[in-house]
């Protein structure tokens, strides 16, 4: 890619989406836009830039979309995964010791780095989870992104962002220039296409929901609606994990911040119970009647 092409793309992205690329992100542009140019039947980045300069508004829109789709890393931001290992899972190991099952939902699973990071965390816990039924459900709006997640194949650049080298050696298989997540880790994830704006109650109730860096794209009312519906799918003693720049505070009280664990939230007792009523309401009277007899 020539420097003028790079500068042009930087400026277009800044002006149209606010995305602010630093001067050394050539590989990022190439990794995102080469597939797009191929899809459009163009020879490469320079022809793509020529077409954009020629005034193809739809192409500009596609470029912006390709570049702004949330970039994700293994163990992105690190801290949420420390919380998962040190705060969330020890509690679940105790609370679910009877039924020995844990259900986790990655509500913006994207290209798989987050669900696979969680699967690796669980694998690292080893014997503590022996005999447990582990369900990790990864959902995303985009089928294309889910396909990549399912395949679990990542470039050299992707596996070097956040993934410790020991974990790469332990949980990936090298195939040429690419690295594929081992089959036993891949088998831990179920993939489903899902728009968070639609009803997701059919997914069931979860012990842990990771919903990071996706709600930032929604307006306030939509966020509140999604939080309320997420609360209905969260166990009363479960957890919600949000992105570093996200919070429920000031929007809803169905979740409350977990003290001193940034990004971690728990259902807010009474409020969450009210939010659950439309679903729980069917079962509760029966139980009450039976208890009365």
């Amino acid at each position, binding site marked *: 890619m020539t420097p003028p092409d790079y500068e042009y793309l930087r400026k277009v992205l800044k002006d149209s989406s606010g995305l602010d*690329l630093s001067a050394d992100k050539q*590989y990022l542009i190439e990794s995102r836009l080469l597939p797009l140019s191929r899809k459009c039947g163009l020879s490469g980045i320079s022809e793509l830039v020529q077409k954009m300069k020629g005034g193809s508004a739809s192409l500009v829109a596609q470029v912006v979309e390709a570049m702004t789709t949330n970039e994700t890393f293994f163990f992105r*931001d690190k801290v949420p995964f420390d919380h998962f290992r040190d705060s969330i899972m020890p509690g679940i190991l105790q609370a679910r010791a009877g039924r020995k099952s844990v259900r986790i939902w990655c509500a913006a699973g994207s290209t798989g780095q987050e669900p696979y990071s969680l699967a690796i965390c669980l694998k690292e816990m080893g014997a503590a989870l022996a005999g447990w039924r582990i369900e990790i459900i990864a959902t995303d709006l985009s089928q294309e992104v889910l396909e990549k997640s399912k395949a679990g194949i990542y470039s050299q650049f992707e596996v070097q*962002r*956040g993934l410790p080298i020991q974990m*790469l050696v332990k949980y990936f298989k*090298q195939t040429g220039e690419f690295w594929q997540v081992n089959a036993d880790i891949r088998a831990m994830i179920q993939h489903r296409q899902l728009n968070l704006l639609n009803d997701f109650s059919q997914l069931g109730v979860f012990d842990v929901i990771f919903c990071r860096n996706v709600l930032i794209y929604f307006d306030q009312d939509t966020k509140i609606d999604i939080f309320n519906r997420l609360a209905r799918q969260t166990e009363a003693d479960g957890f919600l994990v949000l992105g570093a720049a996200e919070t429920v505070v000031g929007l809803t009280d169905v979740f409350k911040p977990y003290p001193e664990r940034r990004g971690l939230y728990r259902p807010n007792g009474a409020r969450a119970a009210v939010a659950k009523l439309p679903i729980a309401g069917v079962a509760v009277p029966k139980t009450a009647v039976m208890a009365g007899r």
Partner: protein
Amino acid sequence: MQTCLVVDDSSIVRKIARRILEGLNFQVIEAEDGVDALVACKRAMPEAVLLDWNMPVMDGYHFLSHLRRMPGGDSPKVVFCTTETGIEHIERALEGGANEYIMKPFDKDIVLAKFQEVGLIEVSSIAAPGVS
């Protein structure tokens, strides 16, 4: 300020690495092969070593085994930075006492991520790598 020894026979790579590391608040010392790097370590043990594999005179792997046997030589965090991207090289490096491994080409985000991984840079001290 922490010191990072950059060992690479390519002056261009050393220059790029220097720019990245100085941006991450490291004092940078350069060496162009393993022998040169051992001399630098005898003079003053650095906190970090960014280490190429293939170099004339003494390669990175042999430098590492010498370093780890030196007094105080177990303290530096050694991060390989090499075009050798095969898993057998990576495994050999880890068994030889390397702390992390960068597959070239590399950029600032990768160096930052790997240095955070080995505890040379605090995760909270610099914003996590990202698009914006």
